[in-house]
């Protein structure tokens, strides 16, 4: 037996040994529960008495559940707003920090990251003060600039609750993307900018024709991160509005929580989570194929 195959055998065995604790652990507490959710979604169950087998009953009910579809739609809106208000805004800020005011980039980055570090519960509680209908800063600010007529209870009214939550989200997670883009923008070689400067390019030109294409991989990766994060969102919505008033700011996670642990419809709650996962996986697959086509057309896909 040659040394090569014996090392291959040896490394195969070592890899299995070193990986198996983590894999077993993730299997037991992530993969297995997700599959189990698929099984539980076939039952009507209050969490205590005997489960009643429904077959596809929960999914039939789900298909006609307007609250679920609206919640899922809101998750998608959160994702779209995150791509614009977090990812693209962060890219512009990162360009400014690295290229225009580099001396201040560290201190700005530090402050942008503060909300990323703090618990979403704390942030949500603080923003409840900002939005307070009686003494909130948002209303006080509107009065100060002569728009007192627009004052309202932002989190308590159906028309504004969801938008108010999205605003808090965009402030809270922005810093993560600023950090990631600062790292990416710093990697663009100086010589490329110098060549553009000789041609007389200003900051706008440099941003759109050098920085954006050069960090496009990071834009794609960060957008994906923002989409995944948006589908996971729970704590901020829970503490700000708990999906209310009257489901006006409901997202999938808060609806699942209410169904499972408010109404004790465990089977239905499992179905909500399972359906959300399958639908987003499907959406991701379609988006991936679509993006690949565009990317291939533009020659940007690597």
């Amino acid at each position, binding site marked *: 037996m040659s040394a090569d195959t014996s090392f291959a055998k040896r*490394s*195969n*065995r070592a*890899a299995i040994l*070193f*990986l198996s*604790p*983590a894999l077993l*652990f*993730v299997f037991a*507490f*992530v*993969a*297995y*529960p*997700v599959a*189990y*959710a698929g099984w*539980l979604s076939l039952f009507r169950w209050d969490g205590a008495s005997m489960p009643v087998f429904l077959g596809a009953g929960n999914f039939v009910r789900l298909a006609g559940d307007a609250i679920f579809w609206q919640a899922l739609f809101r998750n998608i809106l959160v994702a779209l707003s995150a791509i614009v208000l977090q990812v693209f805004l962060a890219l512009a800020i990162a360009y400014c*920090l690295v290229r225009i*005011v580099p001396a*201040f980039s560290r201190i*700005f980055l530090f402050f*942008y990251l*503060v*909300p990323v*570090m*703090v*618990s*979403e*519960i*704390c942030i949500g*509680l*603080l923003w409840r*003060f900002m939005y307070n209908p009686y003494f909130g*800063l948002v209303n006080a600010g509107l009065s100060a600039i002569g728009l007192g007529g627009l004052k309202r209870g932002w989190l308590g009214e159906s028309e504004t609750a969801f938008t108010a939550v999205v605003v808090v989200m965009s*402030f809270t997670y*922005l810093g993560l993307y600023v*950090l*990631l883009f600062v*790292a990416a923008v*710093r990697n663009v070689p*100086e010589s490329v900018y110098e060549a553009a400067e000789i041609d007389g390019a200003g900051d706008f030109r440099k941003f759109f024709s050098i920085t954006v294409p050069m960090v496009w991989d990071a834009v794609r*990766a*960060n957008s994906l991160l923002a989409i*995944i994060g948006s589908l*996971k969102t*729970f*704590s901020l919505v*829970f503490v700000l509005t708990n999906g209310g008033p009257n489901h006006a700011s409901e997202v999938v*996670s808060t609806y*699942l*929580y209410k169904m*499972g642990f408010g109404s004790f419809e*465990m089977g239905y*709650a*499992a179905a909500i*989570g*399972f359906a959300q*996962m399958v639908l987003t996986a499907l959406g991701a697959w379609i988006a991936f194929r679509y993006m690949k086509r565009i990317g291939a057309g533009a020659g940007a896909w690597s």
Partner: protein
Amino acid sequence: MTAVRRWNLTSTIVLAVLTAHVLMVIFPFFWMIYSTFKTNREFMRSVWSLPKSFSLDAYVGAWSGGALGGYAVNSLLIMAGATLITVVLATLAGFALAAYRPRWIPAVELSMTAAMAIPAYVALVPLVVMLRGAGLLDTHLGVILPTAAFNVPVSIFIMQAFFNTLPRDLFDAARMDGASEWKIFLRVALPIARPAMFTVAIVNMIWVWNDFLFPVVFINSPSRKTLPVGLTDFVGEHITNYPVMLAAILIAAIAPLVLFVFFERQITAALIGGAVKG
């Protein structure tokens, strides 16, 4: 490297706009800090002004008036347990992903990436059933195990990114000397990996400390609640005294902020390392 740029009108405008923006982002935190030094009466008179007096009553009220100390201890225990499990498993697995490349490794990486994308709430109902069956519902361990599991995939990638930076010769030299793979991990890889493990530990501490979904669902007993969950109870009970409420929020927020101030470099490196792979 960025060349030194001439300061011009654009720089001034950009600096002004960014300053205004960052102030909006962090104003709630500034406001929280200075408002805790007010008395409730001063707060009610003018909610947004800076404090005229310097009173620590709010902190005394927050600490004595509630169970915050107990919540903090619970958070600390869960944080320590989950972080320990995650760091150990992620170090072993991250080393394996970087050091060995059997054909099936990409499949492992793909499944870890998929696990990172799964929202924790999908597993919520089954986890309750599983934990109840194991007698772990309403215990710290019942929160620790799933919390650690959901943080393992991203932590593996951070560790793998670190081990990838090490030269292969390092391990080959030890192999020539007849060391077993376990010895190579223990004697060669582990000592150099300490800073990376520390980095993974710090970000996990922040994530676990701030986590809300698992503790709020899995724990019922007030004496076992974590700080973010207990805080929502506390705020409900102290609705009339705003500075006390804000002091409680500050107490819950302070641990991650202190970690961030001291370990900014490690934390930002971990976030970049984890995101690039994800």
